[in-house]
């Protein structure tokens, strides 16, 4: 019976003449949905006032911001763990089955979380949105990546950049959608949260079905018309294949792990503090009465960073097809070091416009780091199990999700204890992040071709590519 399943990899092989540009929208449908995770903070205040009904005056039994924030942390940790654990399974069963599993987990997670909200049981919210939903995030994140690389061997950066751009864009859809739904349901449920979660679970599940049923893998013998394997950066672009199990034995994998870890840790430092950062640095006290950055303007700054996070994913990843991955990451780090180190000075000098421009470029490279990683892995390890290798690499993201905010909070709190305020209170944060990027630059520069002893011997079946 399994042979006749619509979900089987063999049923997803594209017919001759299939237009490969139909594949990125399928991938985007998944990433635009799961990218909602970045907008989870939109629920913080409503979830923290379910009992009192007033976000400004929470009841003693209302959930605290720390309790609520833990939900997102669980989801991100599960993203990394499930991507690492299910990567090989994904390569075996193909993208359609994996995307369906992701949709079930991600959509189902909302439904369980809704039950948790209705029962005012935070553990059920953790289990639903954090644990089950987090597994959906991990499987969904990696599900289209290896398929895209196989369809676009000539433009790996463009293809993966498009999909991973969707993850950046997901928050832009998820945040206003949640606000609109909560306003709609406010009269019928506390803060309108529980019905909103049900609606979002159903909407996202259905939207992801577009990706599930339109994704196609290329036949084994397929190649783009006129394609000749790129030899321009031949030293770091292999024609061999390395299995996921062997990849983690290579220094190259761990160097890339450090590269991703450092890039994400530094970027999260800015994202985590964006709103208070710009309000504290350009306050009324510093700029003059009525001239400081307001809370609404700070929200605009956060929005602008999200936009550049999205654009950077596509721009930098596409540029890496021309520049080479190693050079592109060297730009992220080299330029990043200069820009991070310049932020405190720009803050001290109250150069708001330049400050915003620099922050936007920094965040574009943060997004670019995510989007360029799969293509870098494919260059080094081949297409064979690149999805599984990518999944394992994403544990660096989970680690950075803990490390980045920790560095920011410790350094900022320490500065405040020493009586520093405004731009000065963030100075050490940015200098430290510039130092973190130095580590990343060194790791990137140390990347060389993978030793032949790790290559698969003989022909391999590129599993998600169909056969």
């Amino acid at each position, binding site marked *: 019976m399994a042979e006749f399943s619509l979900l089987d990899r063999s049923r997803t092989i594209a017919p*001759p*003449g*299939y*237009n*490969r*540009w*139909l594949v990125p*929208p*399928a991938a*985007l*449908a998944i990433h*635009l949905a799961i990218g909602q995770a970045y907008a989870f903070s939109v629920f913080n205040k409503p979830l923290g006032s379910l009992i009192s009904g007033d976000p400004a005056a929470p009841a003693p039994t209302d959930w605290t911001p720390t309790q609520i924030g833990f939900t997102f942390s669980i989801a991100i940790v599960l993203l990394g763990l499930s991507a690492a654990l299910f990567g090989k399974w994904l390569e075996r069963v193909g993208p359609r089955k994996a995307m369906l599993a992701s949709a079930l987990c991600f959509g189902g997670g909302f439904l369980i979380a809704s039950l948790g909200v209705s029962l005012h049981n935070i553990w059920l919210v953790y289990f639903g949105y954090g644990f089950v939903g987090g597994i959906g995030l991990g499987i969904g994140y990696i599900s289209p990546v290896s398929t895209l690389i196989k369809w676009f061997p000539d433009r790996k950066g463009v293809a993966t950049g498009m999909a991973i751009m*969707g993850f950046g*864009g*997901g*928050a*832009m*859809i*998820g*945040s*206003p959608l949640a606000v609109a739904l909560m306003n709609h349901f406010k009269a019928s449920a506390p803060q309108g949260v529980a019905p909103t979660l049900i609606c979002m679970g159903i909407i996202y599940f259905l*939207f992801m079905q*577009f990706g599930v049923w*339109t994704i196609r893998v290329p*036949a084994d*013998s*397929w*190649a*783009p*018309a*006129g*394609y000749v394997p790129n030899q321009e950066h031949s030293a770091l672009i292999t024609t061999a294949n390395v299995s996921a199990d062997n990849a983690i034995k290579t220094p190259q994998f761990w160097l890339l792990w450090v590269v991703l870890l450092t890039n994400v840790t530094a970027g999260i430092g800015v994202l985590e503090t964006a709103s208070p950062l710009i309000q504290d640095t350009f306050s009324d006290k510093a700029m003059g009465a009525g001239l400081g*950055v*307001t809370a*609404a*303007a*700070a*929200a*605009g*700054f956060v*929005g*602008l960073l*999200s*936009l550049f996070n*999205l654009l950077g994913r596509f721009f930098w990843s596409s540029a890496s097809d021309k520049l080479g991955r190693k050079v592109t990451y060297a730009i992220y780090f080299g330029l990043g070091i200069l820009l991070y180190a310049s932020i405190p000075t720009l803050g001290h000098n109250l150069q708001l416009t330049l400050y*915003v421009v620099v922050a936007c470029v920094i965040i574009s490279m943060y997004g670019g780091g995510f989007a360029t990683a799969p293509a870098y892995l494919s260059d080094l390890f081949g297409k064979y199990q690149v999805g599984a290798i990518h999944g394992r690499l994403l544990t660096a993201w989970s680690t950075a999700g803990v490390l980045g905010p920790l560095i920011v909070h410790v350094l900022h709190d320490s500065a405040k204890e020493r009586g520093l305020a405004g731009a000065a209170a963030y100075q050490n944060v940015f200098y430290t992040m510039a130092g973190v990027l130095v580590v990343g630059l060194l790791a990137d520069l140390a990347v060389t071709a993978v030793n032949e002893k790790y290559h698969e011997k003989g022909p391999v079946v590129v599993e998600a590519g169909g056969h």
Partner: protein
Amino acid sequence: MSPNSNYNTAGEATSSTGSLVLAWLVVGIPLAWGVSQTFIKALALFK
């Protein structure tokens, strides 16, 4: 060049173009809406 390379007949090309436009609209419209909402919010920074 691969024997299965992407050669389309005229009919296939028309059908493929229609599917392509539709597929990109399905993901493009929500993305454009999200970007426009974010852009409107971001304008507050420059007021």
